[in-house]
């Protein structure tokens, strides 16, 4: 395989190196904030796969985040499986949920697709409340102490250590970034973009666009669920608010701000938005209004987001 977007790869490598270095200069509370940003940007990167690259706007990605969160969290909470096993179960759970929901939701288009994904997600959210005796519902569940660390290759990794959490989050982020680079910058990614730009034409060039969309949907949901599994295990808490509508909207927001259809957009969008939300919520309780206004402004004047605008104006390879 030859590499044809070397510039983007270089930028990704530099980004990961800079992120790694940040832990040595940032104060602890910012390292913790960055840990959250990394995990949530994996969530947004999954979302971006579907919305940015393939042009399918889902309003229900919290359901995949929650699928990973619950599959991982519940299996360690009830069955006492080790964290790495729970993490894998989280990914498998998210994969299964996104494949099944994809098979159903992709029979609809555009607005009805948005509504159908939203309905499925709301059904999932209500289920987490319905089965409160298992999930802990609104209150959630706090993972027991023995689920707060794990041994790997003779090392003990402690999930209450900021350093361990940060580097683990960075590791997963890097793996997901590499996988998404391989997917989006190669032949498969070309088909995702082809569907986004002109689906009927893509059919007439001999491609089964339903299969392409289902692939994008499943990859997207699985990656978002990976973020959920990581989040739950790392912070030792699972609760139904993660399955709620607001979580879906945040993935959309991060992606829109950073630049839909750009590989690094979700990271940038998540960083900017979580920092902003943290600041604003300290100042005013009405911060959601500010976010809403910002969303409208971005949509009107910068529909391509930060990196998307830079790509269109100056750097064509930033995709």
């Amino acid at each position, binding site marked *: *395989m030859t590499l*044809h977007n070397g510039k983007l790869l270089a930028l990704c490598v530099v980004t990961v190196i800079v992120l790694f270095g940040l832990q040595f200069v940032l104060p602890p509370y910012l390292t913790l904030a960055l840990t959250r940003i990394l995990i949530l940007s994996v969530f947004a990167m999954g979302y971006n796969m579907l919305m940015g690259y393939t042009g399918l706007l889902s309003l229900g990605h919290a359901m995949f985040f929650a699928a990973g969160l619950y599959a991982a969290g519940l299996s360690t909470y009830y069955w006492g499986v080790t964290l790495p096993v729970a993490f894998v179960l989280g990914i498998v759970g998210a994969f299964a949920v996104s494949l099944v929901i994809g098979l159903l939701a992709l029979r609809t288009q555009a607005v009805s697709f948005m509504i159908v994904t939203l309905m499925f997600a709301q059904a999932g959210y209500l289920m987490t409340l319905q089965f409160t005796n298992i999930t802990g519902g609104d209150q959630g569940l706090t993972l027991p102490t023995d689920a707060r660390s794990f041994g790997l290759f003779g090392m003990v990794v402690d999930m209450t250590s900021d350093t361990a959490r940060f580097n683990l989050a960075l590791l997963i982020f890097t793996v997901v970034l590499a996988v998404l680079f391989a997917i989006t910058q190669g032949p*498969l990614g*070309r088909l995702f973009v082809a569907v986004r730009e002109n689906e009927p034409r893509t*059919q*007439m060039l001999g491609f089964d666009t339903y299969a392409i969309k289902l692939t994008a949907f499943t990859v997207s949901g699985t990656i978002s669920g990976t973020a959920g599994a990581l989040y739950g295990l790392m912070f030792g808490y699972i609760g139904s608010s993660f399955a709620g509508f607001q979580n879906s909207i945040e993935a959309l927001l991060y992606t829109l701000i950073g630049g839909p259809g750009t590989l690094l957009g979700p990271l940038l969008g998540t960083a900017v938005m979580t920092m902003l939300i943290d600041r604003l919520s300290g100042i005013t309780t009405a911060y959601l209004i500010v976010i809403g206004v910002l969303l409208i402004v971005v949509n009107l004047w910068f529909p391509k987001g930060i990196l998307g605008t830079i790509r269109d104006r100056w750097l064509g390879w930033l995709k």
Partner: protein
Amino acid sequence: MTLLRTKGLSRHFDGLKAVDGVDFALDPGEIRAIIGPNGAGKSTFVSLLSGRIKPSAGQVFFEDRDVTGMPAHKRVRMGIAYTFQITNIYGAMTVLENIAIAAQNRLRPHLFSRKPVSEVEIARAATKAAQEVGLGDLLYETAGTLAYGHQRLLEVAMGLALQPKLLILDEPTQGLSDSEIENFQEVVRRVAQSATVLLIEHNMDVVMALADRITVLDNGRVLAEGSPGEIVHNDAVQAAYLGAPA
């Protein structure tokens, strides 16, 4: 063996019989022109062949296989390529990327190929198709910003990159300059050495220069069929079509 055959092929739009019981056969290797006045049903007819729209009645056979119920993308895989009358390209992508999607379908037909062809190979095939229609200098232009004639040629290049058995061209010379038409005729002659060409064309000079046989459609029905010489001297055609001032 016929390459493509239709039996009683029809498509109605509400009351309108756009295509009305057409029996049609195409031999491998020929260049066939379909002519007929505006609204005769030519575009609808070839859309039925490609599977882009579904027939109200009748059947389509490709290589003696009934493909009537087959979705369009599978027909493309079987070797039926269709270029749109109203240009239908990826406007935001470059010329090269547009053709690369078509080339990829041939070189890497499965989504998860075990033996992936390299991007270089796809790019090379796409470049070659672009050069064949004379777009070799515009590879990195954004397709949507091209002149109309160039967009038409891009459509043709996308069809070529599929290396089809049957290439369907719907009014490909519309909006082309004389020199572009000249070049286009060369392209079709070259393609015809390895593929069958079905050409809807208004420009009678192009039809006469290229076609082995001509089918005349009128009101959704086949009015006449024959060699260019026979068609020119057919009275019914004269009356319905050729006689009318262009």
